[in-house]
């Protein structure tokens, strides 16, 4: 069991209070966890239009599964493991619906990520081009500051596999950035 950061210890404490039905702990958890959840769930370009619904759906799943959280474990991998299944289920549902629809036009959804006011927005657009499995590893490592082991737990994977995905994502981003500069 790792002691974790101050923030992690606070989250663990909030989760235990949430399990004891403390409404203040619930409010505080929703306030603290929703922004990284929103970021994670919107990391998939196709999911941006429905991201608020996804966050709500994810919280309902967290609520139903709250008895499976153990206070000896870090909170964020547990949250992300549930968020990941929420996102995968939504993806499957979307795919099923799309397969039944006739696609009229592909609407570009990257305007917000290529804003000239934000120099790192173009990086966001490049991250969008990464495969889903690499993108989620980058988001977990960078947005939530999780360790490789925590990401492995959240993605039902091994530390070696996570390292490999992160390495490939970095290599792809570096290649893309070099290509941008050359142009």
């Amino acid at each position, binding site marked *: 069991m790792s002691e974790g950061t101050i923030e992690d210890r606070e989250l663990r404490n909030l989760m235990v209070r949430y399990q004891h039905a403390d409404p203040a702990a619930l409010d505080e958890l929703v306030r603290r966890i929703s922004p990284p959840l929103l970021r994670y769930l919107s990391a998939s370009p196709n999911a941006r239009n429905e991201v608020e619904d996804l966050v709500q759906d994810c919280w309902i799943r967290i609520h139903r599964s709250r008895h*499976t959280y153990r206070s000896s474990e870090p909170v964020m991998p547990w949250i992300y*493991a549930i968020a990941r299944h929420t996102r995968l289920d939504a993806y499957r549902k979307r795919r099923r619906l799309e397969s039944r629809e006739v696609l009229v036009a592909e609407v570009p959804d990257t305007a917000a990520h290529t804003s000239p006011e934000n120099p790192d927005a173009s990086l966001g657009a490049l991250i969008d081009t990464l495969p889903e499995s690499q993108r989620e590893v980058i*988001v977990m490592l*960078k947005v939530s500051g999780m360790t490789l082991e925590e990401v492995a*737990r959240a993605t039902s994977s091994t530390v070696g596999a996570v390292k490999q995905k992160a390495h490939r994502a970095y290599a792809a981003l570096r290649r893309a950035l070099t290509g941008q500069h050359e142009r």
Partner: protein
Amino acid sequence: MNDNSHDGLDRRLDAWAAAREPAPHELEQRIAQTLASSLAPVRPLASPTRLAVVFLAIFAVCAAALTAAIGTTGIRLTSAAQLTAISAILGIAAVLFSLALANQMIPASLRVLPFSALLALASAAVIAAIALLFPWTTPRLFLEEGWPCSAMETAIALPAALLFFLLARRGALFPGSTTGATIASLAVLLALAVLQFQCMFQQAPHLLVWHLGVAAILIAAGALLGKWSQHRAS
């Protein structure tokens, strides 16, 4: 990520990650209100190790009770080496599959081995033990003597799978082929153990086709059922 921190990419990724937008206040309020309406104290689930011990205890009790009820002809017909090897492999596999199922009940549990690797290892061990330790003689009535074994294996495995599923449902099981295959594997192991102690045809072809062949079909059926339930859930 040490090899990546020497260039500007890490810094740019940090800046990108730091530029997070807050969740809309009304969204947070809506979520908190929805959840508060059903907020009640919950008892945390036991650790994966304790859950695995529970699965293992059920496995052992069911195996002992069914063996006592159905018979022990197989034990009398096998040598000490055969019995020790096959019991050890089935026992170790039961421990590992119990742990795998317990881990699946708790989101973000640490996986030491992917389930597919665990299944491949267990299958290889059982096949190797049967192929090397049991005689390669084919009984005259291969078909007639075989189907009752597969029928019994199925009759044991199906209720066992239902029992393990009902127990595992206490956790946060995510439907999918891995969950279905894990539950089926544990149930099939129980059926294989009982059958091994009871069966009077202790020859490699019979064991491989009528015991393990049916086991493979049942595990595949479990995986398909898991996939189907995932499809229904999403």
